[in-house]
């Protein structure tokens, strides 16, 4: 039972970020800035939780800050890649660098060097040791799947990622749809980051996302761009890590290097041998120029 809980806990931030990114990629955009948006969310959540008077603050307000901060970073990203049609990978990298610099600088300016921890309230546990973010991530998965595959909105989203020209011809605004998808992805990444700070540790440290955004990118590909696929991939990767922690604690020594490489190896395998169903949206990564 304990191991199941720790799998769910490790998988939560990965799943949240991956669900958002799956929507973004379905619309035809690759958001490599996921890592930076997570980090911004983690920091904003800490600031939000500390913004209410009284120690140790209000964690639920932190969630709101994380949503806003993730959304703001995403809006910046959307401005460059949708409006200015800039290279998505380059802008994504810039977002990552910006987030690292921005959070680090504000953190140091606000909390100074040395000193004790900044300590915030942790999100309340709703079900056993699971908090609202975990429950939200797992309940959102089928809803997102249903929306993408069974509703008109979802169809419009997919058409922007597959054939943006035809989508536009049939009256869908590709630019608006893509912008909306990016904002959603940014907010989900913000929540994923919030999970790392106020959801699990109750503190912030520089670069605490530590590559989780890139694992989420790998999850989207391994999960074949489907919400349910992302859930499975997040559980597999999260599970592998939780099992490895558990194994180490029990004295079974497993090399963590293997587990660190696992998401990327699986991604490459899916790409190489996944067949037809492993195909990305046809216009993924291509800027759309409205004529």
């Amino acid at each position, binding site marked *: 039972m*304990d191991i199941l809980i*720790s799998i769910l*806990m*490790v998988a939560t931030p990965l799943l949240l970020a991956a669900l958002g990114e799956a929507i973004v990629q379905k619309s035809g955009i*690759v958001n*490599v800035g996921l*890592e930076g948006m997570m980090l911004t969310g983690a920091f904003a959540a800490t600031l939000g939780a500390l913004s209410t008077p009284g120690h140790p603050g209000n964690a639920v307000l932190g969630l709101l800050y994380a949503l806003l901060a993730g959304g703001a970073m995403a809006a910046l990203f959307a401005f460059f890649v949708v409006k200015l049609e800039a290279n998505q*990978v380059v802008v*994504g*990298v810039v977002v*990552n*660098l910006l987030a*690292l*610099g921005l959070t*680090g*600088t504000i*953190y*140091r300016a606000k909390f100074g*060097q*040395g000193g*004790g*921890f900044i300590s915030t309230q942790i999100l309340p546990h709703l079900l056993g040791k699971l908090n609202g973010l975990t429950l939200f991530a797992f309940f959102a998965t089928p809803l997102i799947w249903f929306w993408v595959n069974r509703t008109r909105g979802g169809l419009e989203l997919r058409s922007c990622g597959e054939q943006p020209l035809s989508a536009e011809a049939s009256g869908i605004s590709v630019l608006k749809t893509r912008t909306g998808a990016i904002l959603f992805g940014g907010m989900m990444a913000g929540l994923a980051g919030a999970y*790392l700070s106020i959801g*699990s*540790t*109750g*503190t912030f*440290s*520089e*670069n*605490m996302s*530590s*590559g*989780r955004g*890139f694992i989420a*990118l790998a999850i989207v*590909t391994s999960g074949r761009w489907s919400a349910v696929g992302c859930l499975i991939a997040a559980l597999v990767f999260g599970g592998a890590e*939780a099992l490895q*922690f*558990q194994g*180490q*604690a*029990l*004295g079974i020594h497993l090399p*963590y*290097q293997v*587990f*660190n490489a696992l998401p990327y190896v699986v*991604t*490459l395998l899916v*790409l190489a041998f996944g067949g037809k169903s*492993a*195909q*990305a949206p*046809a216009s*993924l*990564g291509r800027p759309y120029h409205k004529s």
Partner: protein
Amino acid sequence: MRTRRELLQGLGGVTIALIVSGCDPAPDKGKEGTTVPGKKATEGGNGGKPIFAGIVMDVGGPDDKSFNAAANLGLTRAIAELNIDPKSKYLQSKSPADYKQNLTSFASQGASVIIAVGFAMAEALKEVAPQFPGVKFVIVDAEAPKLPNAASLHFKEEQGCFMAGYLAASMSKTKTIGFVGGVEIPLIKKFEAGYKAGAKTADPAVQVKVTYTGDWDALDKGKSQADQLFANGADIIFHAAGKAGLGVIRAAEAKGVGFYAIGVDQDQDAEAPGRVLTSMVKRVDVAVFDTIKAVQDGQFVAGERMYDITKGGVGLSEMKYTKKDVPVAVMAKLDKIKTMLGATPPTIVAPTTLAEFDTFVVPKID
């Protein structure tokens, strides 16, 4: 097929992004230490003029509450107490690609002494040091190149870890203690070996459970590993995992009375008063201060310099919050161990590798 090829290209992009995201193209002002560098380079050497000292930090940065923070403390003290150029400062490396650039940047700004904080900079130092024979290069925790202008600072961490292990095993109610390491490198293995030997010396029946996060930054990983160790019976956990290790302290704090974390490098006792049993202190600040002072006084000596338990280079923190919880008899034994470790010749030799630990013979403390 086209789609797949494009996707693979996309993945290539991701890889590049991964590499690029680690670099800092230009030293950014927000990351710099005390002040912005002056355009005018101060003349190096010890001709009475104040010297300019530069510190190149590894990726952890001055807020790691640990190794780099200690180096910064040494620099701050040097600026305050010695008559050195107040523009002396540090540069933080964002990735290994920055080491060479940061070292060169200080050297060409006219620094008299440049201290590279971290073993990872050894290769970069080897390349840069010969190019600036007038500049003193000092590296912490690694071999310096054999040059008249290069020196290295080493610490006998295993001695401090031995004491931490002895204390943890003496204090454990569950007869199980934990160790959370960062990345599995020989330096951290040295911490593990010293800690295990100390625990074995206190009580051979005490079990030491060891995990590695594989990461210096992911605080949540440190916390979940500590949670797992606590769930599996450990009640005291020593961390040597940089910022990830701060998660271990958070875990002990969350567990509350009866559970402890042990901090590392700097005195981390105040991070969670009462829940950090002690910290294995590595006085990088003292070493940095001494080095700057030596250069200032014209007393710089090339080669190796060792900081051990006798010079206060390593050891346990003063245990401001937890001293009252530790039995007097255990404190007395710790004092005894300190003397034995520092004696010439030492009567306790703490192991530095797991292989040495395997053949370690428990000494008698009395």
